[in-house]
């Protein structure tokens, strides 16, 4: 069997890469995708712990995370379409109404 630590390190790496994409990307769709990447990394950790402890609670949680991610994608992409319609741009730098 693969040691649980390996899965957790992979999960940490994927989460870190998702954070990097979230900070550095300027396209709002790509930023949204990096959030999905971070959710996936957390799911991997959940399933790894579920397997390590021999209980399925972690897998049930992953199901809930996936449902929330799907709902979030539907609403978020609606917001993205609205931003494009109002600003004619997908660049987050141009969406700065709340910026000082």
């Amino acid at each position, binding site marked *: 069997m693969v040691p649980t630590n*390996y*899965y957790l390190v992979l999960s*940490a790496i*994927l989460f870190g890469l998702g954070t990097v*994409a979230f900070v550095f990307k300027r396209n709002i769709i790509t930023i949204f*995708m990096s959030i999905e990447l971070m959710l996936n990394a957390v799911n991997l950790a959940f399933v790894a712990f579920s397997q390590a402890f*021999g209980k399925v609670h972690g*897998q049930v949680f992953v199901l809930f995370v996936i449902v929330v991610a799907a709902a979030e994608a539907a609403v978020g992409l609606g917001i993205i379409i609205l931003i494009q319609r109002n600003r004619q741009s997908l660049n987050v730098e141009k969406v700065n109404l709340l910026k000082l």
Partner: protein
Amino acid sequence: MSPVLLIFFVLAALAVLGAVSLVLQKHPIHSALSLIVVMVCLAGLYLLMGAEFIAAVQIIVYGGAIMVLFIFVIMLLNAGEEEHTDFSKLAKFAGLPLALALTASLAALVIKPGQSVQGATQALIPKATEQISSMLFKEFVYPFELTSFLILVAIMGALVLAQREKK
């Protein structure tokens, strides 16, 4: 090296490569395709861990539904290459080191052989799907019903957001 470990390393390397490609690609559609690679690799890892149901859901919901929605929106909005703008000074100098520090500290936290994780059994869970279903409809039935409500709200929210304003 056992074949299971070899499969793990191949899938893990592919997943990390896909994630790096997500960061480096300039065009959003290339980033989306890289993300699909990551998700399929993660589904393979779930299979390796004996979580067949989660692997199937990962492929169907993430790879099939969410990513198709993303690509649909990218094509609908005709999203072009990312415009290059100057980073804020803080992001330029502190962004990458801080992100690396976050990854390193997370990895350092989990790489230490914790007592509970090392002492765990690590055997495949027998009849995992059966256990998940009975748990979902007994122990977690209340949150499960709440998710259906959440999806209803999400549908209505997406409809309200995307409809055209009447003059």
